[in-house]
């Protein structure tokens, strides 16, 4: 099938031409820089706490990546995270049943938001950029209804569960691994291949018998499963509810996807790349902090890093594309 060249198994593609090569290189680079300014970066305790605090962005970037791979975009993930966070803080009380119920409602809300966005983009054919900007206002409004002022209470088990570690493996790392494993299971199946196919050429995919709209809808629902995980992680960190909490995640997730080597045009790149991109962006903030750069430089440095990473991605990709001849 045209446009659905998904390499199965190992080999064939040289490592330098892998979509992961550059994101990995940038990630390693930033880790090295970070290790230079922050001694003890590799101490288990530091690794654990870094993983825990980076996990929300990494998870939401993975969700955004799936949506971007299918050829769309979602500017409502941040507001959606806020909504789920506010559901948790509104519903979780001391009892175990209330916690379980809150988790279920939160998951249902996440999948529901993915469904609404997917329907609007795939079936009403609205441009995803604007449609999800509009829906983000709705999610934010509902979150504000649930929690007009930051605060509230989330059962302590959420937090203690999140910071649990089984031997050397911290729970956030486990969540990330499970999420990635889930995506790999999907990727090997028809839906996964169709997401790449529709993302790289919707018309061609449709002409070869793929129900393009349905695939786009599923990409949204799948992506929002990751948004749910991200919201859970962030709730565990904060132990309270805040309708404004998710705001920075929207654009940061898009930035992470791009730094992770995924084409915004869709169809090209890897979800793991986006996760590395998210980790890279988080480490940048770490570096700025430990290098004693005044905090007023943060925004400037963040923007510059994205531009540099972006330019590298494109400059690097040019010759390899010619070599592959596709």
């Amino acid at each position, binding site marked *: 099938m045209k446009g659905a060249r998904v390499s199965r198994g190992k080999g064939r593609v040289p490592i330098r031409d892998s979509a992961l090569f550059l994101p990995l290189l940038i990630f390693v680079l930033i880790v090295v820089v970070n290790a230079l300014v922050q001694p003890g970066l590799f101490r288990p305790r530091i690794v654990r706490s870094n993983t825990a605090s980076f996990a929300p962005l990494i998870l939401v970037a993975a969700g955004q990546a799936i949506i971007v791979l299918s050829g769309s*975009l979602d*500017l409502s993930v941040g507001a959606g995270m806020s909504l789920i966070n506010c559901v948790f803080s509104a519903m979780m009380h001391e009892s175990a049943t209330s916690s379980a119920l809150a988790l279920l409602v939160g998951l249902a809300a996440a999948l529901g938001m993915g469904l609404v966005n997917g*329907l*609007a983009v*795939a*079936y*009403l*054919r*609205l*441009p995803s*950029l*604007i*449609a999800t*900007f*509009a*829906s*983000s*206002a*709705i999610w*934010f*409004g*509902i979150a*504000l*209804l649930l929690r*007009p002022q930051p605060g509230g209470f989330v059962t302590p088990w959420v937090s203690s569960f999140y910071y649990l570690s089984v031997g050397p493996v911290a729970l956030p790392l486990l969540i990330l691994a499970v999420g990635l494993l889930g995506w790999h299971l999907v990727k090997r199946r*028809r*839906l996964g291949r*169709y997401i790449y196919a529709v993302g790289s050429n*919707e*018309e061609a*995919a*449709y*002409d070869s018998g*793929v*129900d*393009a*709209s*349905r695939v786009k809808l*599923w990409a949204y629902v799948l992506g929002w499963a990751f948004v749910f995980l991200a919201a859970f992680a962030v709730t565990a960190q904060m132990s309270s509810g805040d309708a404004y909490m998710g705001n920075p995640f929207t*654009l940061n997730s*898009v*930035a992470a996807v*791009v730094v992770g080597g995924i*084409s*915004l*045009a869709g169809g090209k790149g890897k979800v793991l790349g986006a996760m590395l991109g998210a980790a890279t962006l988080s480490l940048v903030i770490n570096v700025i902090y430990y290098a004693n750069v005044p*905090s*007023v*430089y943060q*925004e*400037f440095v*963040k*923007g*510059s890093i*994205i*531009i540099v990473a*972006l*330019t590298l991605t*494109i*400059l690097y990709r040019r010759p390899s594309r010619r070599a592959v001849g596709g």
Partner: protein
Amino acid sequence: MGATRIDTPGRLLWREHSKALASFGIVALLIAVGGAISSGFASSGHILMLVKTGAFLGFLSLAQLIVIVSGNGGIDLSVGAVASVGAVVGAAVLHGNDGNIAASVAVVAALGLAIGLANGLMVSFLGLPPLIVTLAMASVVNGSIYIYSKGLAVSATSSPFLKLVSNGTALGIPNAILVWVGVTALCGLVLKYTKTGIKLYGVGANETAATLKGVKVPLFRFWVYGVSGLVSAISGLLLLGYIGTAFLDIGSRYVLPSVAAVTIGGVSIQGGSGGYLQVVAGTLVLTVLGALLVSLQTGEAGRQIVLGLVLLLLLAIYGRQHSANRGRFLGGLFRTRRA
């Protein structure tokens, strides 16, 4: 095939302006609803006030429009940051003194043009995606203001003349509205009747055809981003006159509304079509809707929810785009083909 329809001048005019008319109709409807709820809403004074507030979003939406029309995924998410820089630097050069107005305009215009051209360089010559380039540029520009002001509020203020332009009135009509009308007329002329305007639509609609016609497409887009930056920066200066003092995120809250205003006016986000009159209409829809929701006293939560729903509704009416599952009811949602 039915009989070939002849394009009479009337039909052409209708086709060109039907979307703008529809949006103006919605504006009228919203004002009528507002008037039914509170009598002051539909008073001429209040309507003038609303249009005046809309003008500043309108200026930034012009910057957004030309980039979107130029096609190839064109979008400029740095318009807000550039407006902020225009306001902050403009205020610093002005020092509250009318004598510095020429210098201030020159510095702000040059700065806006430079930032816009930097966007254009990356988008057009390096082939980077406009969405993320302009987003990162917004971070860089906002970060620079932050560094410049050391994170503190900028105390510089506007000058009497600038205040007069943005806040004064002539014959009972706010000057900002007069400026907006002038800008709209000028845009109508430039976009429709000059070579540059025709090129802009040509490049957006069909890059290959434009290239074959001898247009240097990358160079042209490079300048489009530059002009967008210039317009944004000057808008920031006008915003400074309106608000009186400059602050760090004076322009940020206009970014996504500027994209929304363009789309609500019925301009395709894929480029190549759409005039500024449509954007004016879209801007007014957003502004009046916002004011109506405030007067309904629904609170911030209700306001956001209704705003989102109305945006989705308007988009569903005329913001739809081509899709592969075309020509079927709801794009084939109720078909049973397996994915």
